[in-house]
């Protein structure tokens, strides 16, 4: 249509001089009072607008598509991916509409990750260390997994389970009862067993009511489900730093909830202050973002410390004052080895009079019980509406019935679980002591921590420059020269450069000297040149 529009007739394509005359003549008319002023201003404006309109219509790919919401770099990513066309869609009768468009979420996820946490994990996969088969490989210190107590399970299973798990003996535990639809939020017997186990893990200082438990396929969906329940797209959570890098991927990806870091300092042993929370809350409000909750890990990851009682009180007061939620990820509650006792939100709420309706606890069996593969997570909430909504959302993330059947007798065997918890603590402590002592030999100090599967090491003396860039260079040297994968503080949003998280529970005792030697390689060259 626009091709034939009178305004786009060839007259405006004539040489500039002719065009200029077209403007000048009506303007001359103005001088002579012939209304040329109007024409003189209208014609160029009209030409301008119609030119834009014409160009816009013929630039768009086709009438059925609209501008993609994501930047063009993402679209070109899609175009570069190997496409398996049997015949090009160009031959279809309506012509090509361009590549198949996916959602903006998919576009953002398609970009290669820039998180060193994930890059490091991938590198290890390509060249993993093995004491005999690949002694020059990269040693994994970046994954918080606990391999120290798997032998205890093997013993328990061989003593307690025969074919009853698989139901080959018929009866109540037959395959038909295991394989059929179960309540999405978990079998009642498992909730009861889990409530008891959680209480045991926390030294019986907190009690858990099975009716407030929602079971999920891992802690990852537990956090996502809670996020969906307490916040809308575009809202935000305050998250004290340094924090678990996985939050960056797991929370905002589908919920659209923003994570706002609240920086903590080594001078406070990385424990957040209420004033910092308050400041972050107000800054968010100024830019029109509603903060709906605070997300904390307690015991902390990556630092490994435990929140003091007073800080928890202050946090609860703050949350009540601002009318926001607290999501407390307590997944390392059973991995404590220091002299400090872990204090759960549940312990405080049991004994003190705080508003419970805004507190939600996340737990799981991936860390304390070394069973990440089984996908077992827990939402524990005091808010009936959150429980009701979360229960319905577990249809997307339920625990396999087969696994539930294995865990019910295991977690109910309180003698076994007590022995396990104590042994686990001892073994973690032993590894921690050896590892930290080894680092000390190199002059590397660690933060004061008493839990977790890692230590938080201060390597700021080894970094070439006291900056994120310097930290990155050291990380790179550790990965490629020392051949160990550790998690740099910047991946955890730590405000102070030079801190690294080193997980030691995937190692055997004899691996520790190897690790220390390798770090020494880099440490010595750094201090020599630094």
């Amino acid at each position, binding site marked *: 249509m626009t091709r034939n529009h009178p305004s786009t007739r060839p007259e405006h394509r004539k040489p500039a001089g002719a065009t200029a005359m077209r403007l000048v003549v009506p303007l001359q008319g103005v001088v002579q009072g012939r209304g040329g002023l109007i024409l003189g201003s209208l014609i160029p404006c009209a030409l301008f607008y119609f030119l834009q309109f014409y160009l816009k219509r013929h630039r768009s790919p086709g009438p059925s598509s609209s501008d993609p919401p994501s930047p063009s770099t993402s679209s070109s990513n899609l175009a570069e991916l190997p496409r398996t066309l049997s015949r090009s869609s160009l031959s279809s009768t309506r012509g090509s509409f361009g590549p198949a468009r996916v959602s903006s979420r998919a576009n953002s996820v398609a970009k290669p990750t820039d998180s060193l946490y994930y890059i490091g994990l991938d590198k290890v996969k390509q060249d993993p260390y093995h004491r005999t088969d690949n002694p020059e490989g990269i040693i994994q210190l970046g994954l918080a997994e606990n391999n120290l107590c798997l032998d205890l399970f093997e013993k328990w299973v061989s003593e307690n389970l025969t074919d009853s798990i698989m*139901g080959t003996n018929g009866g109540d535990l037959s395959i038909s009862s295991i394989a059929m639809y179960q309540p999405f939020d978990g079998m009642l017997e498992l909730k009861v067993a889990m409530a008891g186990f959680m209480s045991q893990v926390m030294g019986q200082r907190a009690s858990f009511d099975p009716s407030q438990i929602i079971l999920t396929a891992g802690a990852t969906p537990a956090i996502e489900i809670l996020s969906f329940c307490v916040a809308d797209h575009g809202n935000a959570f305050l998250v004290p730093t340094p924090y678990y890098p996985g939050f960056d991927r797991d929370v905002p990806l589908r919920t659209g909830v923003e994570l706002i870091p609240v920086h903590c300092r080594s001078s406070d042993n990385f424990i957040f202050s209420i004033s910092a929370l308050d400041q972050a809350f107000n800054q968010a409000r100024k830019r029109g973002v509603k903060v709906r909750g605070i997300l904390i890990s307690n015991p902390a990851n990556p630092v490994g410390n435990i929140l003091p009682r007073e800080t928890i009180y202050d946090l609860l007061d703050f949350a009540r004052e601002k009318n926001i939620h607290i999501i407390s990820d307590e997944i390392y509650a059973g991995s404590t080895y220091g002299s400090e006792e872990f204090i759960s939100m549940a312990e405080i709420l049991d004994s003190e009079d705080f508003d419970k309706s805004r507190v939600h606890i996340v737990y799981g069996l991936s860390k304390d019980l070394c069973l990440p593969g089984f996908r077992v997570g827990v939402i524990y909430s005091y808010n009936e509406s959150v429980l009701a909504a979360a229960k319905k959302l577990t249809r*997307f993330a339920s625990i*396999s019935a087969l696994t539930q059947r294995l865990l019910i007798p295991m977690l109910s065997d309180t003698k076994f679980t007590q022995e396990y918890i104590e042994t686990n603590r001892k073994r973690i402590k032993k590894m921690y002591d050896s590892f930290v002592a080894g680092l000390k030999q190199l002059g590397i100090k660690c933060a004061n921590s008493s839990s977790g599967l890692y230590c938080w090491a201060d390597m700021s003396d080894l970094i070439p420059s006291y900056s994120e860039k310097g930290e990155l260079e050291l990380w790179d040297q550790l990965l490629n020269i020392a051949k160990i994968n550790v998690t740099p503080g910047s991946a955890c949003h730590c405000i102070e450069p030079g801190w690294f998280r080193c997980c030691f529970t995937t190692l055997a005792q004899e691996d520790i000297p190897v690790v220390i030697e390798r770090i020494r390689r880099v440490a010595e060259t750094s201090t020599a040149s630094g």
Partner: protein
Amino acid sequence: MVAILSKIATSDGHGEKSPYFDGWKAYENNPYHATENPDGVIQMGLAENQLCFDLVQDWLKNNPQASICSAEGLYKFRDIANFQDYHGLTEFRNAVANFMGRVRGNRVTFDSNRIVMSGGATGAHETVAFCLADPGDAFLVPTPYYTGFDRDLRWRTGVQLVPVPCDSSNGFKITRQALEAAYEKAKEDNIRIKGLLITNPSNPLGTFLDRDTLTSLVSFINEKNIHLICDEIYAATVFAGQPDFVSVSEIIEEENVVCNKDLIHVVYSLSKDMGFPGFRVGIIYSYNDAVVSCARKMSSFGLVSSQTQHLIAAMLSDNEFVDKFIAESAKRLATRYKQFTWGLEQVGIGCLKSNAGLFLWMDLRQLLKEQTFEAEISLWRVIINEVKLNVSPGSSFHCPNPGWFRVCFANMDYQMMEVALSRIRTFMLKNKESATPTTTRPKKKLCWQTSNLRLSFSSRRIDDIMMSPCMSPHSPLAQSPLVRARN
């Protein structure tokens, strides 16, 4: 101050306020048990496959190493317990790809690198929606369709569903005109259509698409450059003796088919074909690399337990077992289908001729007081409360025509089925006594039916029967213009 919750938590997006769930509640309050509660409500609203557990039980007995809790399998415990890579165990992906191929008669092969896990098919559908569409975008869905889509595809994703009505007058076939009309109307309403979602074999119809129709759907989505999501969760429930199921994966490999494979995505699960809903094994199989990558990252929100992966890997790579299972399951489903439909025919109830699925699509139009959805719901309440069967009314599947009900038959043993049939028989006889002339079947029909051999009975004849007296063009009940198609 009361803690504020999200819109998702406080909305009705979970769909549990629909009347559909009243049937569930009636069952839960008074569930049938052969000895302890013989007058209870029989569950016929849950599409479960319980016909072949004995085969699975035998296999498990003979393959203890598949379980990490047996003496033979314990040595794998620590590796499996520790394994949380979201790619899944290699042997699991290989086994699932192998199984999917065998279910389709080895007419197509699946690439194990495209197998992505999810929390059941429920999780798979939600994840695919998150990958393909932004909030406000829409998918076309032919009606009648599985009620769960309203929740699974829309609740957290913000995506809409635009129904494409399929009418009983042509056997609920998906027509090109209906697709075009729905697409154009959505465009007029400024709704951006991102894809077409089909369930093939269909839930609730139990039919599967023939080659031509499926090819025409593929060309439709290519023309519009929209995605095609094929839920093939019932692929192995095709009854023995029926034509082969044609998967979309076969169609796109054909030489004369023009298709941008980036638009094709298959949702699968072991819940129906194998009868393992409790294992939560959902599979996304996409031909689009960006979707595979995105879905894989999102699979962290619903990974399959490594213990389950290990078991399934062993079971589904045992080709002898798999072939035997598929064949036997198909036979048992066929038998159960014939038994049930025959029992219904005895009392003059017809069903849509179907060849797959764990249910049948029962035609009770002749029992409606008027051809409206209100009448359908009243009839449904009668069926639940008096006949004591939890069946699912067509309106819960967005069926455009009232009077149809989905009845599940594979979640019970033979005895329970007989009880259900006898209750229906009793109800129909009672109904006949008090019915008006137009709803009473003439005696000659009974004689005609009893003379039929069970095996040779074709349901086309049922349609003939149902079309005469009750559904003849002269009947005031048939195809009344007063019937409002629900969208």
